[in-house]
């Protein structure tokens, strides 16, 4: 069986860059493919560099966080499963080269990340509350709690009756204002003719608008077109 370059590099990542004696197909490919052979060397160098770093124990609180995360619906598991389901892409040669140029011991997390992690670890309760409290369903306070608050709270909070009276008074005021506006508008519509318009009573149809004349002619059966106005 002949491996492709992609399959060979995936196998090399699994082997940390060093092919095992039983990987005959991989060894055969590396013998004929110089690029994959170079990839194997770079991967082995990175793996060796990383494996030389001092190991740090995981914080004991990490277990609690993991448990909390699992209780939140195993999202991490699903995320990791999803990531694992993705096809692996080969590391670009330029990136691998840069990784080799960097001194591993100089690599460290930003200071702010250290501080945030430290704060979370020192006050786990607050951290948990920040992360999960916002997702909780809001529940109404028990009636007994409300009664106690009203009993011990200052007067403005306790005087529900007064507030209701004030609300009712405001409503009545609004209604009166609306009624006043309505009466003003209605009064404007019902006012005498001489208040708003100059009204003229015509004794002839000469000044009748052509549109009104045609409409009136249709409604009167044509009477206004028979010269009736001449009799005035």
């Amino acid at each position, binding site marked *: 069986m002949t491996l492709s370059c992609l399959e060979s590099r995936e196998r090399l990542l699994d082997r940390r860059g060093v092919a095992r004696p039983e990987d005959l197909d991989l060894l055969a490919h590396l013998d004929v493919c110089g690029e994959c052979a170079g990839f194997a060397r770079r991967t082995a160098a990175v793996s060796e560099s990383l494996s030389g770093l001092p190991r740090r124990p995981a914080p004991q609180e990490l277990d609690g966080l993991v448990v909390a995360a699992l209780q939140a619906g195993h999202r991490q598991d699903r995320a990791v499963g999803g990531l694992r389901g993705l096809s692996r892409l080969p590391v670009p040669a330029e990136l691998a080269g840069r990784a080799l140029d960097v001194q591993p011991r100089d690599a460290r997390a930003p200071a702010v990340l250290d501080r945030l992690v430290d704060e979370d670890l020192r006050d786990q309760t607050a951290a948990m509350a920040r992360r999960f409290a916002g997702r909780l369903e809001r529940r109404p306070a028990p009636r007994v709690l409300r009664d106690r608050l009203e009993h011990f709270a200052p007067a403005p909070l306790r005087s529900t009756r007064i507030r209701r009276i004030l609300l009712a008074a405001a409503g009545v005021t609004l209604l009166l204002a609306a009624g006043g506006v309505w009466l003003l*508008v*209605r009064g*404007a*519509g*019902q*006012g005498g*003719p001489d208040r*708003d*318009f*100059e*009204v*003229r*009573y*015509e*004794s*002839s*149809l*000469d*000044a*009748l*608008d*052509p*549109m*009104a*004349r*045609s*409409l*009136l*002619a*249709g*409604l*009167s*059966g*044509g*009477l*206004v*077109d*028979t*010269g*009736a*106005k*001449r*009799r*005035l």
Partner: protein
Amino acid sequence: MKDLLDTALDRCRIARCIGLLALCAAPLGGCGSSVDAGPSPGSNAQNATAGSPPPPFLDNIPDAPTRVAYGGQRHVLVHYTVAGAPSTLEYDENVWSDGHGNFTIVPGQVTSPPMTTEQAQFFAILQESRDGFFYRHRDFRIRDLRLFLQNWSVSDTGQQETVAGRVGSVLEFRRIGGAATWYRAWIDPQTGLVLRAEERDAGGQLVSRVEFSTFTLTPDFTGVALHGDRFAPTPLDSLTDTTAKIGFQVRVPSILPKGYRLESAEGLNDGTGNWARLAYGDGVEQVFFLETHLPPGQGGGTTPTDVDIGPKSVRIFRVGPWTVLQGRFNQDRVIVLGKVDETSLLRMLKSAIH
């Protein structure tokens, strides 16, 4: 009578007259339909009658002119007082309907006033151009049964009289709360058609009458040019911005004569500008509110014969039972027309302007 033709020609050229009349002849969309849906008309018919049960054909009256195929000759008589002077118009006309919304009215001989041949021909042209308006708005008709039942009372006289060979039930219709005029109508119980209708004033004097002199339910349409809506006005939604359709925002009256509801809102063009025409009805009668917006720089004339008498001025005309209010407010020309009292029309006008 030469004045008749001279006057008409002085007022407007024939083409423009016909154009305007044709605009009026354009149907009012939604006529006969109420703004808000209500219970089935027949369920309330009892409430409109004065004591006796309602005639069962009441439900058929609104749709009969467009639902029934018929033909015949009608005699029209109008006794109107125009600004205190009595005037009479009397003529014949032939009417056909195919029962599917198509109809026509062909003017016939004019009995009164006397006219020369030339005058009669000109008058016939005008009449023919507005036959659609006659058919829909001139004659007595229950246009909206639900509104009618709210605003009118029906009295069945119990009489059966023959009109043009058809036996009709004689009913009297009066506006609840009173009105200047009332109607007596001879209704064909089989079709719901109005065979004869008389409008009378409070003293019982005849104001107008339209009656069939010949009538058939099997008309011969040979050579008859039936038509539906000659002109289709632009429907308007008066509650929204009408600027895009007619170039200005309609001032919708907020106070209406008692019992009236909006029936239709349409945009028209009279050749010089766009108009908005709002039609309100009480089930039988109609009030029209028309408005146009003058371009900047136009209007404002104050000469006595000018149609436009200046801002915040209203002219009031009386033609028979009709009252016409005509005014200009800034750049808006407004016309309100209806068979209601002047105060109600003024109130309606003010509510639109304010």
